[in-house]
């Protein structure tokens, strides 16, 4: 289920940045329409319960398999999962006419060692820090050649996006180039062995913020919130998504693909290796991130939040933290209630900022479960 803030004036673009690019009607419908599933206690999407036309892209036997089997990601890799859903959804939306540009990182490395490239989409990798600009170039070429039916998707990890590729990303946003950029956020530089990035959360242990000393792990008061920075560029579409809700991810890619100009989707993708979680827990961990409020799921158009996914059953941040070895030092040898409280405060701020508990409080009582598509 998704709530919408209907108070926003549809004619948003005071600075006139996106001349001619504002759709006639700014859509305030949610990317995902609520669908009730009567499977209390289960999160299964239940495709078979849905009419054909609203089933997920992945349930289509003719899905493109843009990222097909045979790649070398770790078991349970959230990034591989997210990329597969995102790219297939983009292929679906663009009738297969997609060019993907990839930054260096796990996704690029695990998918391409020849001769087993896993990509069944026209795909280009150039460098770590330039994927947004390369994608701008591809889009410019198609515009010049009158082939704007071919759509461009760029993708990278959090390091490639919030750190080293940030300048190029901001440039692509600012020019409103016709590119959908997808960041797969696993909260560290995984491909080089789990080092801290500008998206690493406080207290997290990485190879460069080790769990030693009086204040183990990453420090507080640093890091950047890229979705909000993206929104500050007043681009047509910014959304966050999570592999915890793949239907929502698909729907957001579809929404993004229905628009032109610079669009950004920031997807939380747990990394079993870097986070110290079991391969089988990827979705569970991702879900705890959204249900605690530590990772808010929302959509924004032209710089303003237009929708957010409410927390279905709120959990304390501690539940999210304690399943991950990168936060183990918060519980052993000494429990760090002070640090856990600071993390909870971040989640609470997200809940307030994005109205993640519209009914207020924690709807702990079991209710008919709801999925979305």
């Amino acid at each position: 289920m998704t709530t919408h803030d209907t108070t926003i004036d549809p004619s948003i673009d005071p600075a006139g940045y996106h001349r001619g690019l504002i759709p006639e009607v700014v859509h305030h419908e949610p990317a995902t329409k609520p669908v009730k599933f009567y499977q209390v206690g289960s999160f299964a999407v239940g495709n078979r319960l849905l009419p054909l036309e609203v089933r997920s892209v992945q349930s289509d036997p003719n899905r493109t398999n843009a990222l097909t089997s045979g790649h070398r990601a770790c078991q349970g890799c959230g990034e591989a999962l997210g990329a597969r859903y995102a790219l297939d959804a983009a292929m679906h939306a663009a009738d297969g006419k997609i060019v993907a540009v990839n930054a260096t990182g796990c996704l690029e490395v695990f998918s391409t060692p020849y001769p087993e490239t896993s990509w069944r989409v026209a795909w280009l990798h150039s460098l770590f820090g330039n994927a947004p600009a390369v994608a701008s170039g591809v889009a410019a070429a198609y515009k010049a050649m009158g082939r704007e039916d071919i759509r461009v998707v760029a993708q990278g990890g959090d390091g490639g996006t919030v750190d080293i590729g940030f300048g190029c990303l901001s440039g692509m946003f600012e020019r409103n180039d016709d590119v959908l950029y997808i960041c797969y956020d696993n909260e560290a530089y995984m491909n080089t062995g789990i080092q801290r990035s500008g998206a690493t959360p406080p207290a997290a242990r990485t190879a460069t913020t080790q769990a030693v000393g009086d204040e183990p792990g990453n420090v507080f008061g640093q890091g950047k919130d890229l979705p909000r920075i993206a929104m500050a560029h007043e681009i047509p579409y910014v959304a966050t998504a999570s592999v915890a809700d793949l239907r929502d991810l698909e729907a957001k890619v579809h929404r993004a693909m229905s628009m032109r100009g610079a669009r950004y989707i920031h997807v939380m993708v747990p990394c079993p290796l870097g986070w110290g979680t079991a391969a089988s827990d990827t979705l569970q961990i991702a879900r705890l991130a959204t249900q605690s409020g530590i990772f808010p799921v929302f959509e924004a158009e032209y710089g303003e939040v237009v929708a957010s996914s409410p927390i279905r059953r709120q959990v304390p941040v501690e539940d999210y933290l304690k399943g991950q070895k990168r936060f183990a030092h918060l519980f052993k040898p000494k429990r760090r209630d002070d640090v856990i409280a600071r993390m909870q405060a971040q989640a609470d701020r997200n809940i307030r900022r994005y109205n993640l508990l519209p009914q207020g409080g924690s709807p702990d009582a079991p209710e008919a479960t709801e999925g979305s598509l």
Partner: protein
Amino acid sequence: MRTQIEGSLAVAQAVAACRPQVICAYPISPQTHIVEGLSAIVKRGELPGCEYVNVESEFAAMSVAIGSSAAGARTYTATASQGLLFMVEAVYNASGLGLPIVMTVANRAIGAPINIWNDHTDAMSQRDSGWIQLYAETNQEAADLHVQAFRIAEELSLPVMVCMDGFILTHAVEEVDVPEADDVARFLPPFAPRQVLDPADPVSIGAMVGPEAFTEVRYLAHDRQMQALELIPQVAADFAEVFGRDSGGLVHPYLTEDAETIVIALGSVLGTIKDVVDERREKGEKIGVLGITSFRPFPLRAIEAAIGDAKRFVCLEKAFSVGIGGIVASHVRMAMSTHPIKNYTVVAGLGGRVILKTSLHEMLDKAVTDSLEALTFLDLDTDLVERELARTRADRRSGPAAENMLRDLGTVRAASV
């Protein structure tokens, strides 16, 4: 059409005549007038179907160029100096991927100390990047080389850097016969990429390659440059047929046949050197000039042939490899490895230092009598250097050297007024 025109604008018009589909622009002196010129051409609607992208950095400029070239669009950008260094990672990537991008480098010094004036340190730093490097002697040649560059790049699937001296050429107004689109169309076929991003026939470009094939990929990069050694003269000959003038090619020998001394250089300084050589010829000295147009690939055989039976060569270089000396000279020595001759490196024109005919004469007086140092810095102010060296000996914390020397110069100048 023959017209009095600034070098940058002539290049802009020549590039436009090649019908580029994507142009990436970022300002840096002395290149900026070129992309400004192109901006006006595109804005006026004279290049329909061309996307002009104002990027946020040179790294982005080359990256946008990589994307657009891989998508099959004819792509152009220009830079200089710090800008070239800022894009280096993408410069190597473009050649590694084999993308036929054409880029002007308006040669300028590299800081620190920051200096906007001409020398060749920027382009020379990229001599191992895998790009073809062509150096223009005049604005006419600069304009012509761009037309040839697209043809060479697209035929070989390799990027080409056209180097022209910053300010000396870019900002000089002189007569240029600017290549026109109709003639260019007869000379330059439409871009037919060897590899292209195509959703109808999807390929992966830029995949990881391990030790099993990396050497072979790199070898092929070298092999394509060796093919360029054949192609560059052919393209120059075809160009002469369509446009009726000689431009480009591998080397420009001037009065070398009977020469005992050959002065070798790249770029616009060749004009001054030729004047000096003419004056010395009048006095009966057997001296000639060899201009190197193609520095990458380096035409070893053509240079060996042009040097022939000369007794010595002097490389006048606008850059040097700190810690060893001449870059061009070491290349030419390689060309002469089977029959080495005496040779001298003269580093000149750094950071815009004017190269005076009198200085060249003085230097050549020594060279022809083999009394020149193996490595000479033309018109080096040794007093200034000595004063700074003395300071560093006297005081542990002698301060920033460049600023110290500027202060010295100020004092000297003030005292002499």
